[in-house]
């Protein structure tokens, strides 16, 4: 049995384990956690323990498929790659370079994300490249870049063990980032750290909290402004920190002046005294941190939410030290890396702007090409709209499943059906590949080398344990083949390491991160040179932008609120046992067994009014569509709120969600829309 040290392919926590494989290099036989890894420390969550199971599933895509006369038929690589390049070029000639879009993937490696953005920019001359960070943390990237100058988790996971106080807002940490959640839980139980949970749902952490704020969905800004109002009024702010390290404080003061506890309470539905209590607990702690996730980001005011979190930690001087900071927990294994490597429409790797002429000149030279586009490209969300309007003609999707993950699925289907040419590169057939003109079979994490970057900015090795099935190829090799066929010679590599060498050259924050240095334990960026030890805590003496910028936000309600016809707030998210669109977890026996049906959480009070019993089939409807699900009658949700997960194609929550976007980050409002629910007889 062979044991290969690699990084877990599920969430952004970045646990490492050994994949156990057979002597023939074709079957994964189990996992063994890494004992020395700083995050795993010999433990894993249930998804990690089962991360071996989907790899050898019979459904794996094994050869390319081309649609002929409406049917997907087996084809050769040669023919498939030629067809892709020919069609993309043809469409670009007819409709312009920006009529083509590339979806990169937070499930693939850093090297592959780098190549996807290089392919889009250097070869196809478009900045239309984006990935699912748009749907999860684009508001973080925008909000924290604005306030601090760097859009990533400020501290390390190990900092959780040093914090005196946690504000967990919009993160069901024990379920979505289990080995981070357990650190928070242990800190409370064993060290007596304070815990404020601000979440509408009664999550596991809430039972350990000093105070559980069940504010109305989408009122985070009002809550945070209310807390800051109290802190300033009671003189609990960190005056020295504000004076020395920040700017624009007066404006913050003016904005939060309008949020006395009574007003904040009215908007949030909380008791005024609870807001006061939370403000005091947070500001009186020596080392307090905010931990947040999609509950903060997935709103039409997601960027405002993020900025408000940043404002609160600056106001209380809780940044740049162990145990403090703004700690957005990234959802996908490599969503941090996909952003870092420039799979975004506005930046190259290392967040270097495409609109900056000097930066373009640098990349032109590095990539040995004459020109690069300088306009900001489409996002995942605006691309779907552009396709629906007929302005986007071709889409190349690598390892994403927008048919299930993007809001307002009927709209997505219309858009994808309207597109002239759809390429899907994936490891399994998906709801999106059903619509594809060409499908390319890719390798999964167990079958290739590369790196993932975890939520704490730690760049870690991914190692090949077994051979990929059938004719499938690694994503990076496929992208290189496409580039070559399109007439570009500057994208040929003999190994993933060679790609990282190039990343080191052009990406200042990754310059010092080489395969040799991260052989056992990864390094945290920024790591600007080969002797730099990495950066566990950002903004220690100085913010990345110099001074921290207080960026006050007014309260804006969600785009769609309940009314008479649609009286419930529908919020969506994930459950512990499944990951995103379920492509992998629903093909893992134990995980699939745990949650087998689409379900909707409803409060007993509402259920009783509607004569809905636990496990009854119900129809949930919004203005966008309706789906069937099984009722889960539970106090986890408040009266008036229902909650669904988006894992299930047979009851896809994203048929219901609203494609209303944050104006800056273009993130959809997955967390709030108006819905109705009825029992099926």
């Amino acid at each position, binding site marked *: *049995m*062979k*044991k290969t*040290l690699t990084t877990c392919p599920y969430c952004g926590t970045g646990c*490492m384990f*050994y994949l*156990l494989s057979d002597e023939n290099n074709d079957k*994964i*036989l*189990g*996992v*063994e*956690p*890494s*004992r*020395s*890894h700083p995050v795993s420390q*010999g*433990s*894993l*969550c*249930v998804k*990690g*323990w089962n991360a*071996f*199971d989907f790899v*050898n*599933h*019979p459904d794996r895509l094994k050869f390319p498929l081309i649609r002929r006369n409406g049917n997907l038929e087996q084809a050769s690589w040669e023919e498939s790659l030629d067809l892709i390049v020919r069609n993309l070029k043809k469409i670009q000639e007819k409709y312009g370079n920006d009529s083509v879009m590339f979806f990169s993937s937070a499930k693939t490696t850093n090297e592959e994300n780098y190549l996807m953005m290089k392919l889009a920019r250097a070869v196809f001359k478009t900045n239309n490249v984006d990935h699912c960070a748009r749907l999860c943390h684009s508001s973080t990237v925008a909000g924290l870049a604005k306030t601090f100058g760097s859009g990533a988790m400020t501290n390390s996971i190990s900092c959780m063990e040093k914090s005196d106080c946690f504000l967990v807002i919009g993160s069901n940490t*024990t*379920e979505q980032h*289990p*080995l981070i*959640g*357990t650190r928070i*839980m*242990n800190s409370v*139980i*064993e060290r007596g750290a304070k815990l404020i949970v601000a979440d509408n749902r009664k999550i*596991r952490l809430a*039972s350990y909290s000093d105070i559980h704020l069940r504010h109305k969905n989408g009122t985070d800004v009002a809550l945070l402004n209310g807390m800051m109002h109290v802190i300033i009024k009671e003189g609990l702010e960190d005056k020295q920190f504000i004076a020395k390290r920040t700017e624009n404080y007066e404006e913050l003061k003016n904005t939060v002046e309008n949020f006395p506890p009574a007003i904040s309470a009215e908007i949030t539905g909380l008791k005024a005294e609870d807001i006061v209590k939370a403000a005091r607990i947070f500001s009186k702690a020596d080392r307090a941190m905010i931990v947040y996730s999609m509950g903060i980001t997935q709103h039409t005011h997601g960027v405002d939410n993020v900025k408000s979190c940043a404002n609160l930690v600056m106001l209380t001087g809780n940044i740049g030290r162990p145990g403090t900071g703004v700690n957005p927990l990234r959802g996908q294994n490599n969503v941090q890396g996909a952003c870092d490597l420039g799979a975004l429409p506005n930046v190259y790797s290392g967040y270097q702007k495409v609109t900056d002429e000097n930066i373009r000149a640098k990349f032109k030279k590095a990539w040995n090409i004459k020109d690069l586009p300088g306009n900001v490209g489409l996002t995942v969300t605006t691309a779907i709209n552009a396709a629906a309007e007929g302005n986007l003609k071709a889409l190349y999707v690598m390892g994403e499943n927008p048919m299930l993950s993007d809001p307002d699925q009927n709209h997505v289907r219309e858009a994808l059906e309207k597109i002239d040419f759809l390429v899907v590169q994936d490891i399994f057939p998906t709801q999106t590949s059903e619509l594809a003109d060409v499908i390319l079979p890719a390798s999964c994490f167990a079958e290739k080398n590369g790196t993932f970057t975890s939520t704490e900015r730690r760049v870690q090795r991914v190692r090949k344990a077994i051979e990929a099935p059938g004719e499938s190829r690694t994503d990076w090799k496929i992208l290189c083949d496409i580039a070559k066929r399109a007439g570009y010679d500057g994208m040929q590599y003999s190994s993933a390491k060679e790609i990282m060498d190039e990343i080191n050259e052009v990406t200042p924050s990754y310059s010092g991160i080489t395969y040799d240095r991260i*052989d*056992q*334990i990864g390094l945290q960026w920024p790591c600007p040179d080969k002797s730099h030890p990495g950066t566990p805590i950002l903004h220690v003496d100085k913010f990345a932008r110099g001074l921290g910028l207080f960026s006050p936000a007014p309260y804006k309600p969600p785009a769609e609120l309940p009314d008479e016809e649609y009286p419930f707030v529908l919020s969506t998210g994930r459950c*512990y046992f499944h990951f995103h669109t379920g492509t992998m977890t629903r093909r893992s*026996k*134990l995980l699939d*067994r*745990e949650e087998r049906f689409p379900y909707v959480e409803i409060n007993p009070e509402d259920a009783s009014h509607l004569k809905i019993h636990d*496990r009854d089939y119900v129809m949930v409807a919004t203005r966008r569509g309706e789906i069937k699900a099984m009722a889960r009658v539970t106090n986890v949700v408040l009266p008036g709120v229902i909650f669904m997960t988006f894992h299930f194609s047979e009851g896809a929550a994203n048929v219901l969600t609203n494609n209303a976007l944050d104006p800056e980050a273009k993130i959809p409002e997955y967390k709030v829309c108006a819905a109705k629910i009825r029992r099926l007889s």
Partner: protein
Amino acid sequence: MKAATLKELENFFKTCESEYDVLVPIELHDGTRSLGKITDGPLALAGELIPQKTTSIFFPQRETMFTIGIDNNFIVPEPPEKPIMVVGLTAEDAECLEFIDKFFSTDYRDDIYFKKRDNSVVFVISGKCGKNGEFLKISGGKCDIELVCNGDKYIVVPYTEKGNELEKHLICSTEIASLEALHKESDALPTNEKDILLEASKLIAQDRVPEEFWDEIANRCIACTGCNLVCPTCTCFHVGDLNFEGIVVRERIWDSCQLDGFMREASGHNPMGIEGQRTRRRIHHKLVADLDRWGHVTCFLCGRCDEVCPTNIGIKSVTKEIVDRFGQK
């Protein structure tokens, strides 16, 4: 008795490879201690507890039970080409192995398990070779050979015929070594953990541990299932079929009683539907139900569930809490 140096043992293990599939404690890439081939990493006879259960050599996380081919031919896995020699069980692990041997052969004999287990040779390592030189209990049996570390060398103690045969081929510079002092040290090891375990067993059996306690512990459980997966006496598995274009492979993979789906009925009803009940079951089963069935508890205090649990509710922690809170003051 012979006493072997590390080098002599390493040479010996290498010579055994012609006859056996030899698995020894090694250091993996990042220093994690594990069982592997001698060529897979540096030999690590001494060190921290091997995190993975050592019984996984005979009962792995995933294995094929049978395959039905396209012509409906029924293929069962062959026994390994060479018998397995596994080195590095602790005394506690050896007790666990003895128990699962019994478990897998009572009422129904599990062929898949015994194809690997039959003809295998098991070495226990004990003495001054734990984490930071900590003394590991001497087994005194329940294996074929024991290697007892005296801080310098490993005294070789064969117990079975197979063990005697192997010992003959082990070339050592030291032919005469005494175990006496080491036995004394082993006998003097504290037994409080065992006392606590048995006391907790009684308290649970006497129904003196209230439901609220189990709910409280369960609230800390994130259902990672690690406690079950690293437990050498956990034997539950899930059965599933993979259909590769007409070829059906039936597999079994480790399962966990901490999952809702473990006991859930097809109707959706679950007699163990509450987390607290599942947490209670994990402990009750080993300390009470198994005591009734087998005449002894089936936790041998190997310590792995305490090491793997991210929220510190392994069996040692929970039984200690039970005794502290509900035991005789």
